[in-house]
């Protein structure tokens, strides 16, 4: 952030997520979501009526139903009327909208939540519907196939190989052992090819889950949280939609977003990267110039739990929670959307000096 006027300070003050599971048949979306909404409200002592702005992220294609987000609104207590918005994207982008709303001074607190139930459908097929409808979607290339093209491009470029990808998978799931919310934890076989060169171990688990955070501005944040995770910068950028136009081994949009968010001004100690496929972590580490001294995905990342539409918001939440707990002083959070890292959001979070 730069400019003449000093912008309002805005922080993540609370974070909650569900236990991510392969199926949650017994719960509707709102039933799955409510515990995390109550979780962040309890952490801050806020009531629904205290929240200045509410923003959510989800997808009708996952739900198999039009305007599906309106049913989830029952969980936030939307009567009497509240100030509310929705993005048909990962909740990280809902957080971006809420951050902008708080910057304008229109609100002092914001509730951001997102959720996704992948279990009713086939998420590989569902995600084909976000592709270019003229040249790409009619071929039904699924999400794993597109990620595999990117992985092979990295292998051809000498940026990685299959054992290195397996090591990313193993490290992620080992780290997830300490994360009680994760869906896949501990030692997991790398498995057979799904779409070569990606094996089951290189791919995220398919599952259901939800997350919520509360943002607050300035002194309000200090009242609500002992050590707020201040958002020092946040930016999101997009690549050309044509896969064959992009350089798949790099992520210029991530690098640009990081630059605009101020990532490169000082080192970060933690990075929560939204890399659903192992090879994407290789791309992101390079784009973000992360050294071996940076703790990457201590939560286990999206390879341990990837509730579609919530996994990016969870990266922001996990990074913030480490600051809340005093385990990090300056953390980077990244979220992605679209095939092969098409859209990328980067945030820098900092705790007050100790």
């Amino acid at each position, binding site marked *: 952030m730069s400019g003449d006027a000093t912008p309002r300070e805005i922080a993540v003050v609370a974070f909650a997520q569900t236990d991510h599971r392969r199926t949650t048949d017994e719960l509707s979306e709102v039933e799955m979501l409510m515990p995390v909404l109550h979780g962040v409200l309890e952490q801050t002592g806020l009531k629904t009526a205290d929240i200045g702005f509410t923003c959510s992220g989800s997808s009708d294609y996952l739900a198999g139903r039009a305007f599906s987000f309106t049913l989830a609104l029952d969980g936030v207590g939307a009567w009497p009327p509240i100030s509310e918005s929705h993005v048909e994207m990962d909740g990280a982008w809902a957080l971006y909208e809420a951050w902008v709303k708080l910057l304008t001074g229109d609100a002092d607190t914001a509730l951001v939540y997102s959720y996704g139930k992948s279990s009713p*459908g086939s998420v590989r097929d569902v995600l084909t519907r976000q592709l270019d409808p003229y*040249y790409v979607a009619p071929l039904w290339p699924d999400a794993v196939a597109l990620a595999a093209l990117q992985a092979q491009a990295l292998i051809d470029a000498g940026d990685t190989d299959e054992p290195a990808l397996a090591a990313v998978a193993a490290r992620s799931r080992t780290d997830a052992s300490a994360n009680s919310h994760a869906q896949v934890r501990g030692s997991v076989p790398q498995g057979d090819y799904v779409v070569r060169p990606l094996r089951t171990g290189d791919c995220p688990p398919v599952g259901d889950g939800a997350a919520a955070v509360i943002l607050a501005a300035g002194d309000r944040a200090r009242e609500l949280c002992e050590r707020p995770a201040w958002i020092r910068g946040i930016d999101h950028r997009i690549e050309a939609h044509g896969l064959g136009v992009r350089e798949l081994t790099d992520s210029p949009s991530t690098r640009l977003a990081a630059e605009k968010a101020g990532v490169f001004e000082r080192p970060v100690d933690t990075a929560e990267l939204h890399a659903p496929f192992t090879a994407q972590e290789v791309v992101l580490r390079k784009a973000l110039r992360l050294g071996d001294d940076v703790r990457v995905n201590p939560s286990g990342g999206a390879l341990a739990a990837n509730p579609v539409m919530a996994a990016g918001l969870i990266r922001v939440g996990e990074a913030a929670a480490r600051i809340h707990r005093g385990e990090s002083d300056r953390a980077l959070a990244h979220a992605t959307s679209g095939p092969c890292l098409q859209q990328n959001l980067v945030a820098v979070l900092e705790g007050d000096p100790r």
Partner: protein
Amino acid sequence: MPEILKAPLVLEFPFTRSLGPVQSAFLSGLRERVVLGVKTGDGRTLVPPVEYDPVTAEEIRDLVEVGATGTVTTWAWNHEPRRGQPLGTPFAWVLVRLDGADTALLHALDVPGPDDVRTGMRVRVRWAEERTGAITDIACFEPYDGEEGHQPAAHSGEFEDMVTGIVAEARLDYVYSPGRAQTDYIRALSEQRTVGERCPSCRKVYVPPRGACPTCGVATAEHVEVGPRGTVTTFCIVNIKAKNLDIEVPYVYAHIALDGADLALHGRIGGIPYDQVRMGLRVEAVWSEGGRYPDHYRPTGEPDADYDVYKELL
């Protein structure tokens, strides 16, 4: 916990999409076995072509013909083809830079196994026998042992009988579960009972229950049987016959506050001429033989309810 209901849900949607001038030329070209690209301001040739330069966002229209042969820039082996994909046998997904192009096109490559594909291999288009002006007019790619030689040549982009639109067919399959609260509701209906849930905070009874109180934002769980009688709170007269609906028009569709419920649900009113339905009319559910939900609601013959009794439920 009783078993949660599940049912298959199929969504099919044929979006009709119009094409801009560049996409129209490209897809018309494929129908005639001609592959077109578009030149950007800095002289690069994009295949497949787009209407706006991905770098400068300038409108671009400068069409060129490129080769139907090309080079694989990356690939992935798909040993289990899925519904809708170009080939039913195992194949490689490939990005192919066609001769004369600077960018790559996504498609399928027909080779026996993963050992028969590598980055840098030469391939050519295998045309579909029946071509309609769609990306699937390229059936797939196949190996080709010729050298690269094609230079892009200017092309008017004009063909007889231009393709101006496509139908983007989609089908997604789900196994849908309505969750606990709505499962309970649907199960009770199959026993010809209507069950709502009471909010522990504001004490309102919601029908149908969705597991949460939209006012308080808290979970609801306490079952409350409501009805079977209720009051028409408001209604409309439907004069348009819906597709696949075997009901004579005009008919009345109404909001009905079942006795004991704090929210009106909606249903069709029968057993009374449409122009005699009124606010306050007392009705009861009518279940058809083997029906899993009320077919319609009919007058009970009781005196009308006082406005004051149901005004909060409008």
